[in-house]
């Protein structure tokens, strides 16, 4: 089934964790 190919899709599932950490770090640096 075509859906199974989707599992090979390259997705950064943890992106939100990194975005959040980066935002907090620079907010803190500029605090």
């Amino acid at each position: 089934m075509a859906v199974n190919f989707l599992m090979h899709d390259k997705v950064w599932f943890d992106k939100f964790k990194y975005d959040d950490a980066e935002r907090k770090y620079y907010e803190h640096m500029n605090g």
Partner: protein
Amino acid sequence: QTLYTYPENWRAFKALIAAQYSGAKIKVLSTPPQFHFGQTNKTPEFLKKFPVGKVPAFEGDDGFCVFESNAIAHYVGNDELRGSTKEAAAQIIQWVSFADSDIVPPASTWVFPTLGIMHYNKQATEYAKEEVKRILGVLDSHLKTRTFLVGERVTLADITVVCTLLWLYKQVLEPSFRQPYDNVNRWFVTCINQPQFKAVLGEVKLCEKMAQFDA
């Protein structure tokens, strides 16, 4: 001109819809024996043309090769789709980047478990749902006063964001969830009913019941 991909690849749809607007003729190779995902894209001759081995991958009849779906859609499109002014071109890139950076991760986190291609994680899914609400809110206020995302006609911005939202609208955005975002719903339905979108996507059935994870 040839597009290598696996079947039903939403990233490939972007280029195919762009080609419908520009009139570019593209042959899609997506099933054996012409193309066997996981094998053909690992062969030396494929990697020589496309060193990262990813699909979709495009080969022009002049031998010009390019990978990355946004690059392919840009190449097979036309100036209208790419943005005819500096401002329009920049705003189109803005929405294309927004789709890749802000929509793809939460959309995949929410949808993949409902397709049974990834384990369900309650916390991640709940977070993804909130992210999707944020994204739809941004698009909804932008589309309050606009028919399309950039300028007065369909561009690569609409094609890219529609294709990126496709699985969400088909799989989990049930009427009660999408109800607050009627500008986005109007825009999405307008786009998928354009003949150039329909030629590639066929009939898109909007989700009626939010799919749960497929244990």
